[in-house]
Each structure stands twice: as structure tokens, then as C-alpha cells.
């Protein structure tokens, strides 16, 4: 049917958000055992920003023309690819992801590289914070345990594992921190290294202070942020030679609240900050391949960096 537009009326439909709950690429546990390759685990509390960071990572790999990014699933299933496409779409439309459903785990396999650089092939999983926080014993959580599927992924042998520990900086305002995340991270690290837990020999991790823009004017540096809010976690890290940890502040850009007719406020991206996500991409690439991407910041700590760190520690 042909519709003649009214003269003088400009109709500009806003970009819509793709509903992520309608995708059925959910891990059922049948294909976890026997896996090999590189795995990136993103862990953190509820609403810490794990999904936002992953959305941003995929969006950035997609929009950078200097990166060759392949997200086709090697098992021939297109659901995961469609899911990642929706992430790119939603971030481009300014929508931050909604909370991840508890008890539901999704796995993605992607590859990226540059000309003259090896292609990094790695897998990562999306999981709700509730399924990670359950490792901490509480009055309600009498039998602390991780999500069963996550546990199986973590126990995979012959897999290179890297960890992103996501802290929600907006919950650690200066002088108002509750050490909730410190307890979670410390418990998790101990569980990962303990023989009665996962029993990893080494732990290669990146601590990320997400929503850094909220607190960047309160803390002198990200170093001070981690020192102030993660005393026990840092103590565990420094006392174990099996842990290699780096720290990174992270922000997605400028976020505004959009009030809806129904009364709810939705967070929308007004502008995108690519600096932090490039650090993240660089760290992932460097930690798995020991190589440096062209045009991306160097995250390898050199001698001068180590001296500076030592001085700063004093």
C-alpha cells in the first residue's frame, strides 16, 4: 500500500532495541567437556558491567577497519552470530544491555587479528552475576557454589584461560565502599587456585574498574581505587607467585538517562569512548599471543613501568 506523507511532518523513527531474550543460543552443557583453545572468563558481581564490557568489545572489534574480525560460529550454528550482531546493533543504537538472565549461560567463539599478525581465536561466555556471586557463603547461601556449567568450563584441561574481574566503580564511591566485591574476588581467586576448588596452576587476570567515569574525580588514580576497595584481594595477589594481575579503568562513554512514558529510566549512550576498550582488546591479544596489535596501546609492562610500579607501591 502506498502512503503519501503529510506535508510538513518529519517522521524519524528511533532505532529500536533488539530483544536479546528471544535468542535460544543457550549452553545446555552437552558440548562443554573436551574443549580446547583459548577461553576468556568475565567475572563480577550482579550489575557490575560484565555484559556491557563484552558488548563494547564486540562492537569495537566490528567497527575498527584495522581489525579483521570473524564471529561466524565454527559449528555451523548461526544463533551465536546473530546474538553478537544484535549486540553490535544495540550499542550502535545507544542501548546498553539489559541484565543477563540468571541460570542462563551463552558461549561465543570469535577470531580477530591484523595483517601480518597472528589471528587470535578465543571463546568467551556470558553469565549472570548471580551465578558467580553464589560462590560467596552467606546466611542464605549455605552451600556456596558456582553455576554448574561455569564450573565445568573452568575445570577444562588443556585450555588457555584468562580472566577479567569486573568491579562496579559506582558501588565503591570514595569512603562508602562495603568491600562486597573485595570479598567476592578474593573468594573467587582462592577457589580458582585451591586444590579443593578448580586447582589452576596460574592465574592471568585483568582487574577492570567499570563505570570509571562515575568515580574518576573521587580517586587520584585507578591504582588508589583498587588499593582502597580491594585490600584482601590485593593481599592474595601479592602473596601468590602464581597470579599475574594487571589493572584497568573502563568507561563506555557518556551515558544519559532517558525517561519513558511508563516511568522507567533507560540508560542511553550519548557518546562512545573507545580509549579503554582498545586497551582491553590489546590486553586480550597480548596475553594470548604475546604479540602487539598495530595502532593499539601497549599493555606490556616494560622495565621502566616495573620501576614506576615499584616506586608507586612505596
Amino acid at each position, binding site marked *: 500500500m502506498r502512503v503519501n506523507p503529510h506535508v510538513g511532518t518529519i517522521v524519524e523513527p528511533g532505532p529500536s532495541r533488539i*530483544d536479546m*531474550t528471544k535468542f535460544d543460543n543457550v549452553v545446555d552443557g552437552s558440548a562443554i567437556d573436551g574443549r580446547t583453545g583459548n577461553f576468556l572468563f568475565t567475572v563480577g*558481581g*550482579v*550489575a557490575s558491567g560484565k555484559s556491557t564490557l563484552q558488548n563494547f568489545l564486540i562492537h569495537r572489534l566490528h567497527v575498527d577497519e584495522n581489525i579483521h574480525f570473524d564471529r561466524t560460529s565454527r559449528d555451523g550454528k548461526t544463533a551465536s552470530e546473530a546474538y553478537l550482531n544484535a549486540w553490535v546493533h544495540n550499542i550502535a543504537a545507544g542501548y*546498553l*544491555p*539489559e*541484565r543477563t*538472565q*540468571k*541460570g*542462563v549461560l551463552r558461549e561465543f567463539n570469535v577470531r580477530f587479528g591484523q595483517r601480518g599478525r597472528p589471528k587470535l581465536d578465543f571463546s568467551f561466555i556470558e553469565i*549472570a*552475576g*548471580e551465578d558467580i*556471586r553464589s560462590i560467596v557463603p552467606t546466611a*542464605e547461601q549455605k552451600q556456596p557454589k558456582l553455576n554448574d556449567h561455569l564450573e565445568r568450563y573452568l575445570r577444562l584441561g588443556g585450555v588457555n584461560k584468562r580472566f577479567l574481574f569486573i568491579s562496579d566503580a559506582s*558501588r565503591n564511591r570514595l569512603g562508602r565502599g562495603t568491600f562486597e566485591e573485595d570479598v567476592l574476588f578474593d573468594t573467587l581467586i582462592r577457589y580458582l587456585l585451591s586444590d579443593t576448588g578448580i586447582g589452576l596452576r596460574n592465574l592471568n587476570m585483568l582487574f577492570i574498574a567499570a563505570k570509571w567515569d562515575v568515580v574518576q574525580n573521587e580517586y587520584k588514580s585507578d591504582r588508589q581505587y583498587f588499593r582502597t576497595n580491594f585490600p584482601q584481594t590485593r593481599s592474595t595477589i601479592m602473596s601468590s607467585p602464581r597470579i599475574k594481575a594487571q589493572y584497568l579503568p573502563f568507561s563506555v562513554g557518556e*551515558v544519559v*538517562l532517558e525517561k519513558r512514558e*511508563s*516511568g*522507567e*529510566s*533507560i*540508560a542511553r549512550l550519548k557518546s562512545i569512548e573507545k580509549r579503554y576498550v582498545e586497551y582491553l582488546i590489546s590486553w586480550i591479544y597480548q596475553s594470548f599471543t604475546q604479540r602487539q596489535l598495530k595502532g593499539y596501546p601497549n599493555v606490556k609492562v616494560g622495565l621502566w613501568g616495573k620501576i614506576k610500579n615499584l616506586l608507586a607501591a612505596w
Partner: protein
Amino acid sequence: MSGVAFFVCGTPSNNRGFELVELGPAKLPGSPETYLDKAPAVAECHRVESVLIDGERYVQYSRVLKINPNDAEANRGAYIAVGCLIRERLALGAVANCLDAVSELYGRVSSALTAERAFPASFRLADFTHIGPPLDERAAHPCSPLVVADVVLQALNGEGPIDWPKTKEVLLVPGEMTSADVSRYQLYSRQGVLGSLVSLDAERSQVHQTAQRATAAAQALIDLQREWGELQETTERLLAKGEAFKQLSFEIDRGAKRDRALDARDGGTEGTQSAPPYEAAALGSYGRAHYQGSAGFRIGSQRGRVGHDARRSHASQRRHGHARPGWARVALVLTGGVLAVIAFFAAEKFWPHESAVVSAPQAASEEAPPQDGEQQKPPESDVARERAALDRPQPNQ
């Protein structure tokens, strides 16, 4: 109503995340968060969903409301849901009762919301409990909201079993009404589509009972068939044993006859010419030539060995210088056979099995030890009884 599980769940707090309260009476199966934690696409709705949990199909009904979290400005899909998970097929009235209970719970939960459609900061979903009659009783009440709606409609239209001009009020007490009371009040729910649904429920209940009876009968038939099969097997085994013993006795008999014939020949009482040929005598006396070729229980009586045995017996008797009486041989063979059978069954019965000893439980009560005689006396086995029956002379033979 054990197949219904009522629940309240949602995300009142952004930082605490998903919370769930189970209200019973049934327990939510599997991992409830995997099928309950779903943010609605619209502000407020009734959600009916068919879910498969551990291979079983359930129907989830819930009333869902989008809310704002009480500890964050931005909404990441916060919601509250009150509902029930139903496993078994219920009558229409029972389903209406479930919906009624859900509406009541939903009202109680949503009444705690502030004007900003968020729960107060102190609100904790885990503290929510059901108040009132037990939910399993509620679901089983015969006076469902359908009946109430029927009576209200009768009042509006001024018709039905109640004399409305003279009646000021009608009190329906769901907890006290019986099915007979309910059927007295029904008018519209007996007619039309709703009426057919109600009658369908009644018929379904009858069909359910009939199906249960049929299932029980089928089970009994299966048991009977199995027992009959076992009986047939036992009979076949018994027949086979009888056949074997019959042949054994035949062979023994034939051996005895052969010995008698040989003795007679050797004794010279009758001339060789007049003695009936062995084979002919055997066949003549029994008339069952087919036993000759049977495989089992051939005690020195195979056709090919007859001549040889006869010659050997003859020579032996000559060597010993005297002929052994035939009855003695028969007695010897019979005694040996009986002893062998008794020894075999005694060994079977009293042979100590190591596994049985290991796993044998201690005797619960002390009993007087059996006398020596009793202990040593082997029980009369079935085989011995069968043998005796076979040895008994048949009237037709």
C-alpha cells in the same frame, strides 16, 4: 492439588539481582531461575507459557509488572512476577481458583510499590509470605470465581434458581461450599461454551477414573500372563525331565532283558536257533523303536555296541566260570542310579556357596539345633518323586 507451585520472583533491587520466593504447595522443579527469570516486553501483562523441565511439560501462569529498581536510576529490565507452575491437567474451576490466588498475591506484592513504581529500599522479597488459607485448599475449593461470576450475572439479569426480587443478598463461602451447593447455584456455567467446559470437566473426571481402572486391569492381566508363562515353562521342564527318566527306565529295562536273553543263551536251556533275535525282542516288547536312536541315557545299549557287549559279556562269564543272575545286575544298576541321583541332589542342596555365606544375614532368633538324624536325612526331592511316579506301572502298558 499437589501439582501446583505458587511463586513470587523478580528484581526489586539492581544490586541484589534475581530473587525468588516459593510459596508451595508443590516445589518448583529443576532450576527455577532458568524459566522464571524473564523480563517482560510490556509494562504489565498476564504471561502463560509452556515450559519443559527435565522432560516434563508444565504450564506457567504469572502476572508480570515492569518496575524500577530501588537502588539504581537506570532500569535494566527490572520486574516483579507472581504466578504458579501447574503440572497436571486441572478442572476449569481449579484453574480459576489458581488464578484467583495469584491475583490476591499479586495485589499484596504490588501494594508495596511506591509512587515511583519501585519497592522501598528496606523491602526484601525473601520476607514475603503467604497469609490466609493454605494454597492447596484454595485451589481445590469447588466454589471457584467462575461460580461467583455466574451468580453475579444471575443477579444482574434477575434470573436463575434464586428468587432475586425477594432475596436481598446471597453469601457464597468458598471454604464451606460443597459441589452440590455449587451445582445448585450454577446457571450460565451449565450452558453454552462454559457449560460444555464444565460438563467436560465432569466427564474428564469420569474418564480419568475409568482409565485408572483400565490401567489396573491391564496391569493385572500382564501379571497373569507372566505367571502363566512361568507355569508353562515349569511344565515343559517337568515334561522334559519325565521324558528323560522314562528313557532311563526303558534303557535299564532293555538292558535287563538283554542280560536275561544272554543268560538264557549261555545257560543252554534254549538253543541259539530258537532264541529270538535281540533287536526283535526289544522292539516286540516295547514297540518303540524310536528310543533306540535317542541320544541321552544310553547305558551300554547302543545299537552298534550290542553285539560287542554281548560277546564281551559272554566271554567274561566264561572266564569266571559261572553266570551272574540277571536280577542282581538290575538291582546293582538301579541302586547305583538312585544313589547317584541322591548324591547329586544332596550335593546341590548342602554344598556350601561362598557368596551366600558372605552375604548371609545373622539369624534373627535362636532355634533348637536339628537332631543328627534330621540333619543328615536329605529332603525328598522333586526328582525322586517324579522318578517314583514314572516307575509306577501304568494301567495301559
